[in-house]
């Protein structure tokens, strides 16, 4: 009887813990030749918007830019400097950068890395046990501009109720709030991997 009770207790614990540690939504792939610890000066290019939400790309870019500044780990180039660079090179959001662009980013803006992003899903979903919750999926790429190479690529996907604690408490109901939380998670992950090492 005692062993049976222990067995059921362990079964219950496993069930509870497996519920808590679901599939990880943040995936970062770092290049084998990357040198993330040398990245300090960074800028954010406008995000490419693959969704039907018209202004989602610029909103996400501005929130992510704010999160980078707020992290205190990076020296972030102002959005205006990046806009003028894009204007000079006539670069649309999501445009592929060439060697010449990387050279110019390094020389004119003294950057170590540049972030390019792509929003793949933005919207609201119902049917997850709560009222409508926002959902965002984003892919970010960090390029080492000094070497002209991809440094890392991150994919992150979240629903507003991923942050639910008890009942409806903790559920994020706004896209801004959700993207801000996701930005913090992404930047924390990058810092853990060695980025933002400003000496």
């Amino acid at each position, binding site marked *: 009887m005692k062993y049976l009770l222990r067995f059921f207790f362990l079964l219950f614990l496993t069930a509870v813990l497996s519920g808590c540690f679901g599939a990880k939504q943040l995936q970062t792939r770092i290049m084998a030749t990357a040198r993330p610890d040398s990245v*300090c*000066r960074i800028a954010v290019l406008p995000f490419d918007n693959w969704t039907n939400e018209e*202004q989602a790309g*610029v*909103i996400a870019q*501005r*929130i992510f*830019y*704010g*999160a*980078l*500044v*707020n*992290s*205190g780990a*990076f*020296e*972030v*180039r*102002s*959005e*205006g*400097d990046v*806009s*003028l660079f894009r*204007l*000079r090179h006539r670069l649309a959001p999501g445009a592929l950068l060439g060697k010449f662009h990387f050279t110019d980013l390094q020389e004119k*803006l*003294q950057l170590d890395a540049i972030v390019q992003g792509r929003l793949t899903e933005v919207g609201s979903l119902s049917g997850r046990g709560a*009222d409508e919750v926002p959902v965002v999926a984003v892919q970010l790429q960090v390029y080492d501009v000094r070497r002209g190479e991809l440094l890392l690529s991150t994919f992150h996907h979240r629903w507003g109720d991923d942050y639910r604690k008890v009942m*409806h408490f903790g*559920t*994020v*109901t*706004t*896209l*801004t*709030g959700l993207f*801000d939380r996701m*930005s913090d998670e992404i930047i924390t992950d990058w810092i853990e991997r060695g980025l933002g090492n*400003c000496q």
Partner: protein
Amino acid sequence: MLERFYLAFGQGLILLIALFGGALSVSAQRVALLPMADYSRGLDGINLPFTREVEKALTDLGVEMVQHEHVLRFMAENRLRSFSYLDSFLVQKMGKDLKCAVALIGTVTEIGGRKPVLGLTFTAMDTVSGSPVWSETGATGIAEQARFLAIGEPQTVQDLAAPLLGKLLGHLGGTVEAGAIPNERSYQLAGMQLFPAYVRGREKIEATLKIRFLHAEPTMVAVESNQRRTYLEQDPQTGIYQGRWWAPQQDGLYPLDLILEWGAGRFVERVENISSFQVINQPPGLEIKVKKALQLDNQQAFRSHILILPKILDIKPMARWALDIRTAEGVLLTTQEYEGDMPERMVWEGRGGEGYLLSDGKYEITLHVWDLAGNHSSDSFMVVMQRHAPQIKAEILTRQGKKLLQVASLPGPVFLFESWSLELLSEHGESLLQQNGRDLPLVLEFVPVAGEEKLFLNFTGEDRLGNRLEQVHMEITVPELKPMKKVPQVDSWVQDF
């Protein structure tokens, strides 16, 4: 009881310090608040009522604000439409002109909706370095503010705004943690334009430079290429620098450096590779290949369409290209001009400029191409378009009392029948003649049915391009036999003889 009172008092004190502690440190700084961007009103949307609310919230926190009208005037003077273009230079200039330590930009990322939400993000820019040094994002919605028994629950966006602004801006006075990228340049290079950027040797180039300086303007501004320096003159009205020079003769890419010279001390700053121009003297070279055309009698011919494959021999930036269609006699039927690169392949179905099919015949197609320096190349080819088989003419002849069928092609088409077959039928459907052959005209003898005035011809033919002609039951009139002249019978004297 007393312990509880001390505890509550202590907590209240901590709360007060937390609320106003930040504001105290900010109050020492003068802040310029730019109009709040509002993406719910489009990419360039601004929200002035909300800007005033933010201004009020900051003033309530004890922050010294630059007057809103002064900020708007600064934006107008510096042609700053949205802060997507607020670069580090303009932030520094804002600090200098408006005498502020911080430029605060804010964005309304979400507002309103069925269940009202409000999303805001703020970024503070340090006007000494021109870099962003602080940022905060926050959002809330009615759904997130559910309270016990719904007492004091916010109902509108305005109800959401005040606590959210207090929460976000209360941190503004906190320690600045983010590092700033030092802006070593005291000027903003808005743009350098060369016209034309691609030239032939010894052609004139004009340069326009838009540059703004934070402090004193340089005494001399010049551009240098290939160790040749050209000084630019400033237009006193627009402040734009302009200059012109002659391109060198030799082909090649010529990078330009910008030279700025200040004062009697001749302090010189060189900005390398600010722009470039290219000298191109050779025309691009053009060759045309034609596919889907048949080679007949040393001529290219088609009946449906041809594929034109232009090939640029020396790849250079192209300005425009054109297509001419002329008749064999040289009459221009259409000419069409397009900007940009020539397509890799073109299909011609024999249509003219307005889309109508041209008549069968011989045409000359010419392609022209111009590179950005204005060098021109062209190539042309002749092609025969024949979309219809030749028409025929059939008639019955009578010679020496014999009936003959004569079939001939009508004049016009370049290529005639390669094969044909015919059958001549009597009025009652009796086959009088069957024949196959290659060439026309032909004359065939047949035996008519006596008394019939009409015959019918079935003809099938195919020309060398594959166009087919089928004539079924083509009526042919049989000409009447001319009555023989009666020779008067003269009684011969011989018989009587």
